[in-house]
């Protein structure tokens, strides 16, 4: 038998093709398996000095021209952020309070397929926040980005939520410094209930993997 096979030299070709073929894993079983969470921070920022924060009451949606924003999950995003920020011992200040917060937390949802987080001046969407007036000079169009230099934003083909903790008191050189950045990706897929559940889970994960915030 073996000799017969061996004598069929043409079998060498499919054998070599078999050897040269490549394999790859199967697809994940659940949508939640596609969820990823990334965080990074400015190494020289002292988070222990933070006692107050400002969190807007809306989530900015970065959408392409002609697109419409889906605000279904905004409340869940803001609620999960507030819970985690409060758990740090930080106090939330209101826009009408007249007191400048140590940090301003800015959430944004990238609901557009293949949107790039680096393509948007997302804090510009909030417009005027009264507390910002306390940080000279007053911001206006033309202010640049404050991402930590080692953060690379990739393209996203599913929904993404980005959260930045910015430090307005340290603003300068037309840059709003970002002390901490959290990105979660893959959340805007599946049913609303499962999305809400994963939003909470993954925003919690942002803070779990950032113990230096405390």
């Amino acid at each position, binding site marked *: 038998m073996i000799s017969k*096979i061996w004598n069929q030299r043409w079998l060498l070709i499919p054998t070599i093709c078999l050897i040269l073929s490549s394999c790859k894993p199967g697809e994940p079983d659940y949508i939640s398996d596609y969820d990823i969470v990334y965080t990074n921070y400015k190494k020289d920022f002292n988070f222990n000095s933070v006692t107050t924060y400002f969190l807007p009451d809306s989530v900015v949606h970065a959408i392409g021209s002609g697109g419409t924003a889906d605000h279904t999950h905004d409340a869940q995003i803001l609620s999960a952020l507030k819970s985690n920020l409060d758990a740090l011992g930080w106090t939330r200040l209101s826009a009408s309070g007249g007191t400048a917060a140590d940090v301003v937390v800015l959430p944004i949802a990238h609901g557009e397929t293949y949107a790039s987080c680096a393509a948007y001046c997302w804090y510009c969407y909030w417009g005027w926040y009264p507390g910002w007036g306390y940080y000279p000079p007053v911001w206006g169009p033309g202010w640049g980005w404050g991402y930590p230099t080692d953060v690379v934003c990739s393209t996203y083909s599913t929904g993404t939520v980005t959260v930045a903790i910015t430090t307005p008191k340290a603003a300068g050189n037309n840059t709003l410094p970002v002390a901490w950045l959290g990105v979660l990706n893959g959340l805007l897929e599946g049913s609303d209930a499962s999305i809400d559940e994963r939003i909470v889970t993954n925003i919690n994960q942002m803070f779990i993997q950032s113990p230096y915030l405390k």
Partner: protein
Amino acid sequence: MKKQIIIVITVLLLFAYSSKAQGKVGEFSWQASLPSGEFTDFIDKVNALGLNFQGRWYLKNDRTSVGGSLSYFYFQDKRGKQTITTPEGGAFTGDITNFTNIYGLQAIIQQDLKPKDQKTVPFIRAGAGGAYQDQRTYTGIYELQNDGFQFMGNAEAGVRIGDKVKSVVLAATWHILPASGDMVSTSFFGIKLGVSYFKY
């Protein structure tokens, strides 16, 4: 690297021919492999997909054979949800699956420990050459890839059982592919089961 591999294989083949080869043998085998060393940081599971095809020529002494082999190995490790620290100091959490495809081309030398016409012939074998490896990580919708050419060496001890022409081969193997570029150093033990056919 490529040039060195080609030179080694060419020298061995010329050596075999110039020594008036005393028969030739082909072998096809399947291998299950267990990662070892630093490779376990990337893959830490037994993987059962390893294929090897080789041809060798016997030298005058009738105990030593030299030739070449073509091999393929696939390793996969679904690690589930993991949190890792990235090189720039960030933290990343995601469902991680590591896998790699390895394509090897080696020069082989084998020493039979008994005359080759006996029914049971223990042997030791060594191989050196090069491999193209494609290491990838799937996480979320993203894919990280590190690939390139590496040195590949292996040592093997086994036994061939059969008649003068047809045999079954059972062997224990160890492969090493040192780190190259961003690719993780790769080494693994294996159990190999194959068939061989002699032509005199």
